[in-house]
């Protein structure tokens, strides 16, 4: 891979993409809730930086609004709310048991390879930068899913869900230089409402089950 043929902006975007992927791995490895939330905020900040770089380099100024939304929602609002919640429910020190950490890491690495393999046949992706960004965003989405299925705490599942959203926004911003404004606003609105609903659910689950362990949510079965 020859990085010197890329423009400065493309190099920055690729570096940010690599960092975002790296934070996804950090999320998977992290077992403490509070640190997990901080890493998630860091990923949001990286997404914010990517959006800014693209907005200025390609002169797509409507992306500035999208960047502001990312900053407000993913870097401040959601992490702060989650942090408050974790403190209030007094679960911030809880160390989570992850199934088998090394196995999950191997799985994650395999998912990244798979993402690159999946986007390989696309002819229009002969441009190095775009191919990488689409593969990385797909990998972030898949790693978010892995985070959801490998953990038992409802809070971590929400972080996984929002991590997937980060991957999607990254795809929209880095690969296509932003979706039309109205769509971005709609998506941001959905994320905001989802974040609020998640908060409501935490309290409902906590009241009824006395824990935020989703393993306890096993009353309903496919067949009995």
């Amino acid at each position, binding site marked *: 891979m020859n990085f010197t043929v890329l423009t400065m902006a493309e190099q920055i975007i690729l570096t940010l993409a690599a960092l975002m992927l790296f934070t996804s791995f950090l999320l998977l490895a992290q077992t403490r809730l509070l640190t997990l939330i901080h890493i998630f905020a860091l990923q949001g900040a990286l997404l914010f930086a990517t959006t800014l770089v693209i907005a200025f380099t390609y002169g797509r100024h409507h992306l500035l609004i999208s960047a502001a939304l990312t900053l407000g929602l993913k870097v401040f609002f959601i992490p702060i709310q989650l942090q408050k919640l974790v403190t209030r429910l007094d679960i911030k020190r809880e160390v989570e048991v992850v199934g088998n950490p090394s196995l999950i890491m191997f799985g994650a690495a395999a998912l990244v390879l798979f993402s690159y393999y*999946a*986007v390989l*046949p*696309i*002819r*229009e992706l002969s441009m190095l930068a775009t191919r990488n960004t*689409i593969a990385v*965003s*797909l990998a972030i*989405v898949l790693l978010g*899913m892995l985070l*959801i299925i490998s953990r038992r705490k*409802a809070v971590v*599942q929400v972080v996984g*869900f929002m991590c*997937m*959203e980060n*991957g*999607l926004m990254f*795809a*929209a911003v880095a*690969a*296509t*230089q932003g*979706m*039309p404004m*109205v*769509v971005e606003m*709609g*998506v941001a*609105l*959905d994320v905001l*409402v*989802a974040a609020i*609903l*998640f908060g*409501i*659910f935490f309290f*409902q*689950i906590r009241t*009824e*089950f006395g824990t935020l362990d*989703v393993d306890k*949510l*096993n*009353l*309903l079965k*496919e*067949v*009995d």
Partner: protein
Amino acid sequence: MNALYLTLLLPLTGAVILAFCGHMRIAGRLNLLVCIATFITSLQLAVDVFFNGSILTPLNFFYVDAFNVYLVLLNSFVGMTTAIFSSPYMAHEQSIGKVKAGGMRLYHSMYQGFLFTMLLALLTNNLGILWVAVEGATLATVLLVSLYRTPESIEAGWKYFLLCGVGIAQALFGTTLIYFAAVQIMPDNNQALMWSVLYEHASELEPTVLLLAFVFLIVGYGTKIGLVPLHNWLPDAHSEGPTPMSAILSGLLLNIALYAVVRFKMLIDPALGSNIAGHIMMGFGLLSFLVAGLLLHRQRDIKRMFSYSSIEHMGLITFAFGIGGPLATFGALLHMIVHSLTKSAIFITVGHAAQVCQTQSIDKIRGLLKTQPEIGWGLLIGTVAIAGLPPFGVFTSEFLLFSATIKSFPWLVISLLFGLSVAFAGLFRHVQPMVFGECPTGQVKVKANMWPVAVHLCIILWLGIAVPDVLAGWIDQATIMITGKGVL
């Protein structure tokens, strides 16, 4: 044109007003009133489209054609009849203390919010907004599933939220890929997600990107359709939420998600020049059809049982759209109507039956014919209709689907027939003792309004005997749009 905006604005205003309306009787009436008004405007919209053809608003933001207009009409019709049922039903639920006043405000407001998001998903021309609206439909209903605040309902709500949220995220990735393919050939980025524009340029889009996108789209929207193996949220959400919600979830929401998939298939087929997308749909559809039929037998909750029947029918429709010929598509479009009318009628009846017996457990519901004959008959006739027996409309559409399958994939008919008979046995095995069995003590009559059920079943009967020209014309036009050839 005005009818279009009114159809969207009415439920949206309704949602806002009902959020502040705490009086139970007034709220129920107001809810119904908004639904009736929405139905009238959508009828007006349908008449417009019938006489003047497709409508495209300035800036291409909304698009109405034969394919979505009949779904809009169906949506507002079922929304209206379910609102008739909902008012006394929810009053009863409140009187036995299952819901509090705040819960009722949430319920009514979200009922309208849900109808709004579905209508928006149907009417919008922008594929991004389509995604936003379908996700919005999840968000509007997720708190309704956990409305009763029992541990089971909260579990169901959480499952619904997380599974559908994660699933639908895949669809957004697919949409982004489509946009990525579109901006390569279109100068104006703002038009690159407009369905009508994309449809004109469909054959120029990069096929490999589209195929990758379609895989994500079918997984994403397929979660919402309830396709096996992505269906786990569906029976839970249907059985634990309030019954009017089950009726519109099953009757309408599943259709909307399938509508989205078919819209994308229409873009992808010309680009790929083959029916790979169709084959993926056939695989998912057939699997859902067979698995759901088998799972029907093992259910103990009456609403869970009928939600598996919904999965089965959605599987059949997905399969039919997958085959893709004019006859199969015509049958699938017709089946969407008859399934949603029949299924919402059944859920309404089931809601009353559960109130009569004070339980949803199949083992404890007995002797409905003796206690309250109209509910017993409603359940029996509804089940006969949904099982696909003549002379009801489900028979007509299934007959068309089977004929189309015999033409294109003769050996698959065996598995279809097998699935159909398994589901038939499963339904009647449970329904027969519920309707005819000995009446246990302690059952009381409830105030049941069976008019919506009667109207739905009459329409199904009508569609079974003769499909009216107007409807057949619309479906045929939609078939021409989807497959390029009509049936009539």
